[in-house]
């Protein structure tokens, strides 16, 4: 089986608290999976263990045929192929939107400035921000900043993009523009692993929802199945609760 991403029995503890207690799953190329679960269940930690921003204590992760968790793997090379979109955007505040998008192709891939600029303009246009190329992050709204950060990830032509609660820091009226971009990406066949509570997004594009609690995957399956026939009572309970909170009913 040639899965694009394989996560196998990943464990992670902070001090005496075990945040991830053996998480395993895989992703095919082009799939979108949504990770949900109460806060403090290790969803963000899981994403960070995948690109080794946080090293896992145990378990293994593969991107294609390469083991990310192997200590001799060139992690920078792997990270260049995995986009990461943060809850708090983390745009480089001293660079314009354009500068933010072209910096990694230039500094990591050694792309020339003219080519990188061209690429950055294309990616900014893709997220609908061609006209904001020269604006600095502090001059942009949260929704615009997050779209720039998606463009920044796209400019590296990643095999996979990890989204860590990309809309949780946004005002409600700005969430839509970010989700719109993400939905388009999913439909174009980008492989995406998304931690979010946006059930509308999950229903629309997720191939699978992964429900995590207390550091383990409680249940996973297609959205329709999880919403209508959850195997575990806890899954249904949680889905109902966030659906209520986020105004998602059907």
């Amino acid at each position, binding site marked *: 089986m040639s899965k694009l991403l394989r996560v196998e029995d990943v464990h992670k503890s902070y001090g005496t608290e075990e945040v991830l207690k053996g998480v395993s799953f895989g992703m095919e190329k082009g799939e979108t999976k949504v990770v949900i679960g109460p806060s403090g269940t290790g969803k963000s930690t899981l994403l960070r263990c995948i*690109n080794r*921003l946080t090293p896992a204590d145990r378990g293994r992760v593969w991107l294609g045929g390469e083991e990310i968790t192997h200590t001799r793997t060139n992690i*920078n*090379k*792997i*990270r*260049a*192929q*995995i986009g*990461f979109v*943060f809850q*708090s955007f*983390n*745009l*480089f*505040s*001293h660079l314009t939107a354009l500068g933010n998008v072209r*910096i*990694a192709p230039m*500094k*990591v891939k050694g792309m020339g400035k003219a080519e990188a600029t061209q690429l950055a303009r294309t990616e900014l246009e893709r997220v609908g921000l061609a006209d904001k190329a020269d*604006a*600095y*992050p*502090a*001059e942009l709204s949260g929704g615009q900043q997050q779209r720039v*950060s998606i463009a*920044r*990830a796209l400019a*590296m032509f990643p095999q996979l993009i990890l989204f860590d609660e990309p809309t949780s820091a946004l005002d409600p009226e700005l969430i839509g523009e970010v989700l719109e971009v993400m939905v388009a990406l999913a439909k174009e066949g980008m492989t995406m692993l998304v931690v979010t509570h946006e059930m509308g997004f999950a229903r629309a594009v997720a191939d699978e929802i992964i429900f995590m609690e207390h550091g383990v995957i409680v249940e996973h399956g297609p959205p329709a199945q999880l919403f209508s026939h959850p195997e575990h009572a806890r899954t249904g309970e949680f889905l109902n609760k966030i659906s209520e909170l986020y105004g998602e009913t059907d």
Partner: protein
Amino acid sequence: MRASLINVQLLVALIAIGFVVGTLVALLQVYGGRFFGGIARIYEWIFRSIPALVLLFLFYYGPPRFGVSITPFLAAALALGLRSSAYQSQIFRGAIQCIPTGQMMAARSMGMSRLRSIFSVILPQAFRVSIPGWTNEFSSVVKDTTLAYVVGFNEVMRNARIISDSHYELAMLAFICVALVFLVLTAAGNGLMGVVERRFRIPGLQTPGASRGEQCR
């Protein structure tokens, strides 16, 4: 006075030494781990503790005892430059530490190495934050250049002393001239730093005329 040019030369040399070494010391203190961070802290402690005059004498009279000859200029530039580096390191360290950790995380997540992230992402922001504190250090070391007269360095102050020793009636005039030289030097330096600060201001983040605390989240 032509001698004031010599002070400017010394100033440029000591600021350059202080800037480069200070940046290195700050980076080691923040990212160097226990060993290199410890060395950097000891270095900073030594050079911030010893009075400037003592340092000058040590650097001027020290090397010849080991058979190394040293010019007054080099001794003064090193003594004052390394001393300034210890002070500058703390300005830079504070600035580096107030750059949100998310900046480093984002840089690393795109595949930049740690060193690349520091030079492309962290330092460009940290230097901007450092400017006000750095201007302060600058106006302090401008005046330190007069101390170099104790090692026989032919700078303004030494010339003023020579004049006042031989023509007592000109003493006041000589020192007033020295004072004027430094008023001009400091004004020019601060003006220059003001230009630098405006030139590198980050739109939307740093408002004109005031430095907002927001950049230090």
